[in-house]
């Protein structure tokens, strides 16, 4: 059971790493699970999985880009809902009034989306700075 789980964790590793070291890691599991216990080896494999995908494969950049986009959309949408024309308007009275409100809404969405972009860039810059500092500390310790 534990061996199957370990093999599954290995299969989830990036292809290059798995092809290069997967069989050896499984062999070590066979050898070491008796003395070290399979629980510790499973935890190590899970950590390795996160490390290979997050730190080594570069796919974290996609996750960060998606998070940034999500922040922008959320701030743009929330800002528009809370502070835009929708929050203030009553029943529509004429086509002209509706057109003016649509233009206002567009401007509001634009303003809030730009604010979201600025905020996500600031957050990303702070996070990258802290992340790099942590990595440099880890390498040099």
């Amino acid at each position, binding site marked *: 059971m534990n061996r199957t789980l370990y093999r599954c964790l290995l299969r989830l590793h990036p292809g290059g*790493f798995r092809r*290069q070291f997967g069989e*050896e*890691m499984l*062999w070590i599991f066979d050898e070491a699970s008796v003395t070290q216990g399979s629980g*510790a080896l499973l*935890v190590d494999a899970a950590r390795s999985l996160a490390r*290979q995908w997050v730190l080594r494969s570069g796919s974290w950049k996609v996750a960060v880009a998606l998070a940034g986009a999500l922040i922008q959309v959320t701030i743009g949408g929330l800002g528009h809902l809370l502070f835009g024309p929708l929050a203030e308007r009553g029943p529509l009275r004429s086509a002209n009034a509706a057109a003016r409100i649509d233009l206002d809404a567009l401007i509001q969405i634009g303003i809030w989306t730009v604010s979201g972009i600025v905020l996500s860039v600031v957050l990303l810059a702070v996070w990258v700075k802290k992340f790099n500092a942590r990595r440099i500390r880890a390498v*040099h310790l």
Partner: protein
Amino acid sequence: METDYARFLPLAPATLHILLSLAGEDRHGYGIMQEVARQSEGKYKLGPGTLYDNLQRLMDQGLVDEAKRRPAGEDPRRRYYRLTPVGRGVLASEISRLEEVVHEAKLRLRLPDTRSAT
């Protein structure tokens, strides 16, 4: 041409232990794990994930290489690793650096320095 070892320093604990375990002889992955545990008297244990993550990086940097020679009748899944001349130079530089650190620490903490006696 002289290799600039300083750009690899200081080494992370896992890297130091792996290079040290390969200094005496070529070893397979499990052998490295066992040797690291022995060197540290069981205080520092490497898991296979940490080991192969470091080995991959060390091989990319040219400090460790896969050994072609392997004992007859070995499990084919076992691959042996060896220290390259650059890896040996980096390890020697790190040990010198650590000696300086220990010397400085003993001076500051007013502990007896055993370096001149050896």
